[in-house]
């Protein structure tokens, strides 16, 4: 029972749903690494209120049904005190059922997303539309002169809600949406889309296509000459882990807007990045996409650092 006090000798059980395999594995592996780093740090400091943290990591395989099953296991079998994780908004919704609605357990969602989650048992540590779209779109229109926007999108809740906000902000700033299209997440042939983008004369592509479709889309958009003709490519969720997924030339000049990039150079951010890189060298990097926010949420639970 989540509301009953834990016995003083009990560990605090922390559950993490991470997409360690499947199209988002490069992010999910980094999330699991960050969770281990934060839990080890907190335990080295004596845990929380004198209690050791015990981490339970489950692989959701970038699949919402798998995520729901693993979430149910964490709550019903492992009886964790809190669940972290989920990247796609559809995965958040899949986790929410067994964890929050069924399990009455605290859930922390660490991804940039469409906003509007307002369950008392859920905390969101990533940015929403007011923090990404509202300041960024007017900045981009001013900086680049872009007036016409095309919105190629994956067909799930995040792109639909975010695009509505993009339309509102672009229109309010004197611009126009010249195309908006939705595709299944694993769609790979975007040649017709790319042709329509060229035909529309769009100054900017605001992309919400996600893995695995985003790799062929960016390749086909690049090959069509969109950016070499001066088109602006925008993708708010892209971080360094996503950059690693595509050839640099395909995304040269791409604009993003997040709460952390590896280039942020305050002392603390640099220290975290150095610590992570020493512990987990390799392709799954410490980035803003989700790992940094899981870290923020974890350290927020502990004593001042």
């Amino acid at each position, binding site marked *: 029972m989540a509301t009953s006090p834990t016995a003083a000798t009990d560990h605090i059980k922390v559950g993490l749903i991470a997409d360690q395999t499947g199209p988002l594995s490069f992010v999910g592996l980094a999330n699991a690494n960050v969770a281990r780093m934060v839990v080890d740090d907190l335990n080295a400091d004596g845990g929380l209120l004198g209690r050791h943290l015990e981490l339970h990591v489950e692989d959701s395989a970038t699949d919402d049904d798998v995520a729901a099953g693993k979430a149910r296991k964490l709550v019903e079998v492992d009886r964790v005190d809190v669940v972290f994780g989920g990247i796609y908004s559809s995965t958040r919704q899949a986790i929410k059922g067994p964890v929050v609605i069924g399990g009455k357990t605290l859930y922390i969602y660490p991804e940039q997303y469409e906003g509007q989650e307002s369950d008392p048992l859920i*905390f969101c540590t990533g*940015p929403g539309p007011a923090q990404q779209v509202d300041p960024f779109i007017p900045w981009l229109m001013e900086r680049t002169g872009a007036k016409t926007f095309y919105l190629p999108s994956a067909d799930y809740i995040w792109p639909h809600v975010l695009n509505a906000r993009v339309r509102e902000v672009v229109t309010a700033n004197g611009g126009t949406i010249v195309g908006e299209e939705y595709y299944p997440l694993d769609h790979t042939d975007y040649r017709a889309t790319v042709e329509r983008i060229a035909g529309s004369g769009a100054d900017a592509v605001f992309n919400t296509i996600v893995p695995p479709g985003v790799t062929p889309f960016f390749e086909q958009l690049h090959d069509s000459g969109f950016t070499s003709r001066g088109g602006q490519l925008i993708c708010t969720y892209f971080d360094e882990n996503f950059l690693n997924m595509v050839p640099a030339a395909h995304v040269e000049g791409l604009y993003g807007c997040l709460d952390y990039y590896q280039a942020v150079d305050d002392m603390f951010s640099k220290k975290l990045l150095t610590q992570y890189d020493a512990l987990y060298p390799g392709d799954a990097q410490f980035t803003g996409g989700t790992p940094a926010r899981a870290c923020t949420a974890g350290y927020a639970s502990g004593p001042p650092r």
Partner: protein
Amino acid sequence: MTEAGSLTQEDVIAALDHAQIAEGPGGPAVMMPGQHHARLNMYIAQARDGRFEIVENLGPIDPQERLVGAPVLTG
């Protein structure tokens, strides 16, 4: 949780409701009371040769989310 002084779910939620960290990845972060979303430093970055360069530091920005438990407004 340190502030809550207790690990009951009610106390943990009450503490997280206005949790803040003076230092975090990207800068400080502050939970906006009642919203369960955080004020965060935001950055605009641009990909250059396979890396992201910061082109604008937007500073701290509020999430402007509705209060938890409030009814969803449609339409």
